């Protein structure tokens, strides 16, 4: 894949698809939900750690040495990356109640912590995959199962008990299963897009290989 195809077509298409797929909320009606202001702020933090880790080299998107169209492609990627990051964050935050606040605060702390840890590209990709994957499972498996309308009498009793104990702040509004698949698609596509970003150093061939440990310590 040439750099032009990747920068002009593949990356914007992938990132905008993340934005679109992540925005679809299917329940009784279908809603295309843009990322909230808080998600946009967290999206900026995601970009910060991506740039800090070297997964994205801004100078390879915008530079005097690039053509005008090439720089416009760079701007398009930067904007798409911001919106896609915000949308992925928005997808992972539950719709309402206590989980919404808890997940939002957790994501904020997680991103600040990641920025403080200053991981390299490989570690950042792993960290994003693990933390976003865990949040996805919590929201779309655990919380969704807890909130799904009960079929058996026992489940309905347990739900009523849970709702009473938590004052209705835990259970989420029901959503169609397609929403979960679209959320997973947007999450995976986002990680692939981050992997494909023009990285510092520019060598993609060894993208997921660990850097060799430095053992070259000689006694003086």
């Amino acid at each position, binding site marked *: 894949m*040439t750099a*032009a*195809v990747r*920068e*002009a*077509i593949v990356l*914007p*298409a992938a990132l*905008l698809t993340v*934005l*679109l797929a992540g*925005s679809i909320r299917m329940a009784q*009606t*279908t*809603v*295309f939900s*843009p990322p909230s202001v808080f998600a946009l702020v967290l999206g900026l933090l995601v970009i910060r750690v991506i740039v800090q880790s070297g997964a994205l080299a801004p100078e390879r998107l915008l530079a005097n040495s690039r*053509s005008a*169209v*090439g720089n*416009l*492609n760079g701007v*398009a990627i930067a904007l*798409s990356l911001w919106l896609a990051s915000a949308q992925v964050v928005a997808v992972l935050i539950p719709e309402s109640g206590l989980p919404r606040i808890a997940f939002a605060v957790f994501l904020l702390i997680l991103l600040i912590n990641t920025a403080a840890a200053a991981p390299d590209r490989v570690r950042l990709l792993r960290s994003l995959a693990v933390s976003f994957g865990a949040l996805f499972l919590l929201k779309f498996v655990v919380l969704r199962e807890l909130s799904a309308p009960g079929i058996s009498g026992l489940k309905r009793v347990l739900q009523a008990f849970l709702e009473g104990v938590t004052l209705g702040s835990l259970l989420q509004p029901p959503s169609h299963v397609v929403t979960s698949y679209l959320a997973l698609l947007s999450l995976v596509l986002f990680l692939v897009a981050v992997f494909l970003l023009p990285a510092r150093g520019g060598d993609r061939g060894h993208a997921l290989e660990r850097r060799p440990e430095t053992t070259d310590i000689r006694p003086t």
Partner: protein
Amino acid sequence: MWAGLRNDGTIRAGGLVFTVLYAGLIGWLFTRQPQTVAQITGGLASTIGAYSIDQQSLADGLRFFRNDQFVEARMAFARADPAIRDARTQFYIAYSYYRQGWGRLYHDDALYGEGLAAIDRAIALAPGGRLVVDDENLQMHTGEELKAEFEAGRRREPSDFNPMRVFRERK
């Protein structure tokens, strides 16, 4: 041609156009919030002036409407304008809610609520918000008249208890 396509500048320019169009589509979806595939395709077609309603279904709807078969009329109108892009059809849908919900002693608030939503849609779709329907079978011809009727019907006021209201006629 293929040599041209392989050129970096062409790829980059083409990609930029694609990105702008794709982003525009997503922005349109966020703004319009279409609920069905028909609404998406109809809405996109209307932005380039290629959307048209099904005249046969509209005629069926009007026939039902004039026979006071309002549920059937709305089904036909919905078939005529599946993308909800035609102000005139939405006006008739709103009018069907008015006529069905109208009563000498009381009005059906739920139907009037649906009608109000429909007439708001119709006014929003009309160029400049001015909606006039020339139909001699109707007594209200503008979006404003119909909207005012819905709003008055949903208000609670002393005139609701005026016994003379039983002599009022449906418009």
